[in-house]
């Protein structure tokens, strides 16, 4: 019961009941006032019409009036009564048993022989001979009509309250049914479970719209939580390696297996490697954080410059790198970040394409956009792995410890996203190719 009292459904139903009651009371009172006014006016007119011919009979004489009264009383039944008083205020005709009234309209009680006292509307008209004619109309039907309206009003109130009570229960149950799953899923999420989703009904109402938005939010949060979990465990794992090595080097130095100088120098290398890992993670985080400084620059010149720096590195690895560009490939992007993207893609080739590979860096126009592509003729990436390679700490061959952190391509993805460049992986079976589609300068500023 207290749950029903707390329910929003009950509050809505009670508010609705209040509004309905206010409305029906207003209508009821208005009906009573208006009908009373109209019925009384009608009764008055009826009495006036009954009175007028008798008044005109007075010109003939009292006897004519008395005869007319008698004739009417025989005809009209009990809804209208007559009395004629002489100047001595004595009733001389008519069956209306009342005291001598003042001239004009008055409300009186008449004694009905069958029903007892009845309220009536009386019109007393002084006649020319000093007599006074009283005609009274029974107000009983008028009052019965008003009682009927009052009863109807009370019935309306009772029905309204009843309907609102039912509405409270139905609405509470409906709200509980629609909101219950949302609360349950949210509670599960608070407890760390992101697997549940709010069921969507076919009607697509406001609840479904909210549920769909919440489900999307759960997808996103769940993905982020999973990614944080994954990254934390990867960082822990990747950090343990250099730290363990540093520790064992120091231990070897301490027990005299190697000289202190060698132990410290080797430990420093391992610790530097751990710090490098942090630096790499922070760089990706910074780019993902969206702090970037776009400026207009020629992507063709940047590509040529980076390739020139890497050409000796490729040559030393027994590979080649070439660059093909179109002139004036101006883009608006963070120059330092794009340089980092290109360096990461070239390092990726060096690391994975194997010795003797040929890499091509290409800057080309693709419609309005400028496309930067780095392609190699190495073993490539299996199709089913292509979605995964841009994740953090992803190394397709975990056995191969080549000093890489598995962050290169996630940095590429982060830079592309921060600079509004669409990234695509070529799905040809030969080699590996990554393209970034940059918005050209004119578009970015237009």
């Amino acid at each position: 019961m207290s749950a029903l009292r707390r329910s929003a459904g009950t509050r809505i139903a009670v508010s609705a009941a209040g509004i309905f009651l206010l409305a029906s009371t207003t209508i009821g009172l208005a009906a009573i006032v208006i009908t009373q006014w109209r019925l009384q006016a009608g009764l008055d007119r009826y009495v006036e019409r009954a009175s007028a011919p008798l008044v005109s009979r007075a010109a003939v004489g009292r006897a004519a009036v008395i005869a007319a009264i008698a004739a009417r009383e025989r005809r009209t039944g009990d809804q209208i009564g007559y009395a004629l008083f002489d100047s001595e205020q004595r009733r001389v005709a008519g069956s209306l048993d009342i005291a001598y009234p003042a001239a004009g309209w008055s409300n009186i009680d008449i004694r009905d022989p069958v029903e007892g006292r009845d309220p009536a509307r009386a019109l007393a008209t002084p006649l020319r001979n000093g007599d006074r004619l009283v005609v009274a109309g029974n107000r009983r039907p008028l009052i019965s009509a008003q009682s009927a309206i009052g009863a109807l009003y009370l019935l309306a109130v009772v029905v309204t309250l009843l309907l609102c009570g039912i509405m409270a229960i139905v609405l509470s149950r409906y709200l509980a049914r629609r909101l219950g799953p949302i609360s349950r899923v949210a509670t599960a999420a608070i407890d760390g479970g992101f697997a549940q989703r709010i069921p969507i009904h076919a009607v697509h109402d406001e609840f479904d719209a909210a549920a769909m938005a919440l489900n999307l939010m759960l997808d996103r949060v769940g993905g982020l939580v999973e990614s944080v979990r994954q990254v934390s465990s990867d960082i822990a794992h990747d950090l343990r390696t250099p730290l363990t090595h540093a520790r064992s080097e120091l231990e070897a130095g301490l027990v005299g297996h190697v000289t202190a100088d060698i132990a410290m120098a080797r430990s420093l290398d391992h610790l530097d490697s751990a710090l490098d890992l942090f630096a790499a993670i922070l760089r990706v985080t910074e780019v993902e954080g969206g702090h970037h400084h776009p400026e207009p620059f020629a992507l063709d010149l940047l590509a040529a410059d980076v390739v020139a720096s890497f050409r000796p590195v490729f040559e030393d690895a027994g590979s080649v790198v070439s660059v093909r560009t179109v002139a004036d490939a101006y883009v608006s992007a963070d120059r330092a970040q794009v340089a980092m993207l290109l360096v990461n893609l070239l390092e990726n080739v060096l690391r994975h394409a194997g010795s003797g590979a040929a890499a091509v860096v290409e800057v080309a126009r693709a419609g309005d956009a400028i496309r930067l592509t780095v392609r190699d003729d190495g073993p490539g990436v299996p199709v089913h792995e292509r979605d995964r390679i841009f994740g953090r700490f992803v190394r397709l061959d975990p056995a191969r410890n080549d000093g890489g952190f598995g962050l290169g391509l996630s940095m590429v993805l982060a830079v592309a996203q921060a600079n509004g460049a669409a990234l695509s992986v070529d799905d040809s079976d030969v080699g590996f190719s990554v393209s970034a589609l940059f918005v050209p300068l004119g578009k970015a500023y237009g």
Partner: protein
Amino acid sequence: MTGSVLLIEDDKDISARIVARLALGGYSTSVIHDGADGLAEATSGTAFDAIVLDRRLPTTDGMTILRSLRSQEVRTPVLMLTALDRVEDRVEGLKGGADDYLVKPFAFDELEARLGALIRRSHSDQSVSQICVGDLVIDLMRRHVTRAGVSVLLQPREFRLLEVLARNAGATVSRMMLLEQVWNYRFDPRTKVLETHVSRLRSKLNEGGRPDLIETVRSVGYRLMAA
């Protein structure tokens, strides 16, 4: 190279170790742990060769000190230390008048190398058109290098690399400094771009069996020495 350094850093442990390290390099260091006191000391008229300034300090923060120094026409080179490696912090620091920027945690070798370069730069004439190191002559105007009178043909990056090393001849230039000044990279590529270029530069300079001028300083960087 020796000099006097003002260190404004609130972490007493780090500042003690910086002082010890700089003393080994021949620097005399004054340490102030508080921002307002540091600003007062920097503007007291004592001549320092360089100021090492922590960004986050009690009472007055590093950026405020830096701006205040520059607005008072104090031109002493400033090396900023920061716990944050964010581009906007770096840009703000350099715009505010910092000459270099170092992110904590840093290697003390890196600090010494950068500080030394900073002091040399402020003392040397940047408009020289020729640098001589031993039998090596670098013509900065014509971008031409000779060793013992024999012309050495260098690629643009190799020339720039040699120029940076030569401007700091006798002192160690760190890997990061070279990547920044030669390639404009704010990150250390995992591949051996720098090593490859140094190796090419070396072989070109040493052609004909001449003694090696470029010394590798393990896990720090390189040093150009008159043979």
